């Protein structure tokens, strides 16, 4: 072991381990006082004058805004005692100021002055009302959506992964599957919708099929290209060390292709969201897509926005989950995109 070797390794671990120290850490958080003021403004706007419509949670909403303002004010003064939380709040300061101002503007142009046409643009307290009064139906819808998505996605991802590996590995599979894949793959899964709804026993199983199809295509293509792109030198090394075919697939081809596989899984997840919503709007009588459709049918636009927000959180959460799994499995890679 030479000295240069040691220092190279030490330097590279240092870069990963050391976090820059925030010089302002420990003192009063002045940005927090500004943020508290902004939340207070939002609260005052909410209570400033009577609503132009009939919304039942205006007072509760104003109190919640006020409570947030108070909590931020306390955090701003007590910054030196709450350590890591203060550091995280500090980086979020601009957002903590902009969000209440946006809420105040939204409140003003919907509930206080009839600038935007009602009932198409409900105020924030209308969403609060949905979450407090209709959470059961909304929650059930989320669970239904998640179940449908999870089954369809896992089936599609598994099938796509297996197909992709066999395409990359076997010439015979490539000969038969490649032309079919080229013809069928680019077709949007939703184009199968009318066919699937009468070919399958239930709209639920049809939706599973469509979600699996939408997920499977990108996963297949990316897994395939990942396996096909594995350097021949990796196989040479394993072969001279006595590896058999099974070892070459499981311990060389698949791990080497994993970065590609995850790109496919990411694209498949996005495609599966689209199919999920369409399937729920057109056939399945449950789930967030159905909820959106139902709310629109009753002209309950508050419910629609509330469901949209929940859907955004759900989709973002699932993508985050996928990225966490990837970060865990591909910890050996450098320069991963942070989600």
């Amino acid at each position, binding site marked *: 072991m*030479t000295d240069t070797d040691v220092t190279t390794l030490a330097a590279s671990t240092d870069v990963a381990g050391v976090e820059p120290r925030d010089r302002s850490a420990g003192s009063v958080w002045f940005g927090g006082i500004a943020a508290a003021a902004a939340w207070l403004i939002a609260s005052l706007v909410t209570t400033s004058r009577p609503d132009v419509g009939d919304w039942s949670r205006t007072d509760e909403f104003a109190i919640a805004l006020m409570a947030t303002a108070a909590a931020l004010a306390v955090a701003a003064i007590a910054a030196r005692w709450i350590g890591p939380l203060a550091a995280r709040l500090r980086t979020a300061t601009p957002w903590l100021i902009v969000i209440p101002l946006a809420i105040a503007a939204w409140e003003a142009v919907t509930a206080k002055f009839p600038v935007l046409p009602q009932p198409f643009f409900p105020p924030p307290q209308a969403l609060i009302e949905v979450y407090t009064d209709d959470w059961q139906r909304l929650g059930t819808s989320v669970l239904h959506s998640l179940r449908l998505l999870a089954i369809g996605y896992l089936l599609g991802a598994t099938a796509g992964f297996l197909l992709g590996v066999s395409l990359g590995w076997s010439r015979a599979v490539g000969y038969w599957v490649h032309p079919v894949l080229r013809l069928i793959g680019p077709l949007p899964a939703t184009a199968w919708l009318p066919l699937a709804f009468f070919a399958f026993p239930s709209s639920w199983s049809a939706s599973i099929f469509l979600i699996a199809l939408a997920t499977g295509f990108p996963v297949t293509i990316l897994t395939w290209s990942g396996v096909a792109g594995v350097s021949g030198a990796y196989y040479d090394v394993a072969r001279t*060390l006595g590896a058999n075919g099974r070892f070459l697939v499981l311990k060389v081809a698949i*791990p080497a292709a994993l970065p590609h596989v995850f790109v496919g899984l990411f694209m498949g997840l996005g495609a599966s969201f689209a199919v999920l919503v369409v399937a729920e709007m057109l056939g399945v009588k449950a789930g967030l897509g159905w909820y959106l459709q139902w709310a629109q049918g009753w002209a309950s636009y508050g419910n629609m926005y509330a469901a949209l927000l929940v859907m955004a959180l759900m989709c973002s959460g699932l993508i985050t989950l996928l990225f966490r799994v990837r970060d865990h499995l591909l910890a*050996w890679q450098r320069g991963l995109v942070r989600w």
Partner: protein
Amino acid sequence: MVAADVRLAAPRGRAGTRLEVRDVSHHFELEGKTLPVLDGVTLQAEPGELVALLGPSGCGKSTLLRLVAGLDRPRSGGLLVDGTPIDGPDPSRVVVFQDPTLYPWRTVYGNVALGLEARGLLRSQRARVDDALELVGLSGFDRAYPHQLSGGMAQRAALARALVNEPSLLILDEPLGKLDSLTRISMQTELVRLWRDAGFTALLVTHDVEEALFMANRVIVFSDRPARIKAEIVVDSAYPRHRDDPYLVDLRRRLLELLGCAP
């Protein structure tokens, strides 16, 4: 008692094998054209010998090594290890490539353990991995990933990955070609030490005349492509060698002449 003594005295690992290359010719088909790379090559390496194959870049030396490793089959001629024809890769004949080609998704330990794992021996012979790491001076780096290693360390790890299989024939394909000159010199010394301790037969492909003279018992000089054997020079000098030994300097001049590089 006598048998036990002999075993103790024997070098660690398997004893070297005898390699015979008999009139091997090989060519590639490139876009319908035939590209000859090896032309009637005949050579042998005695058990425990370190033979250097010296020649210009791209002359076909690496192709010969792939044939010896069993990764490719020759178009004509035969290759034998201890009298048995080579019909595929075997962990007793391990290659160290010019690029370390460590698997980036495995730690240094996982890379070195590769051969034992592939043959299902890892569970029972875990200690051999640690021994190999220690042999190349990488103890304590077992949990590092390849991207954290310097070029020299990566090549050491690749060497450990080969040595853990206790090869009887170690095939070195310009293993030090991409290292900086100082690291290269220290690695040459270490390779000679490892080879002398272990007793395996070694084939060293190189285009570095000094490296060949510093390490090998015998230097075989190849012509430009298609590779033919031009000359064979026995380096009759004891180890450890000194680079400025007048005998080696003289041989160096002769080799450079053979390669057409002498002033």
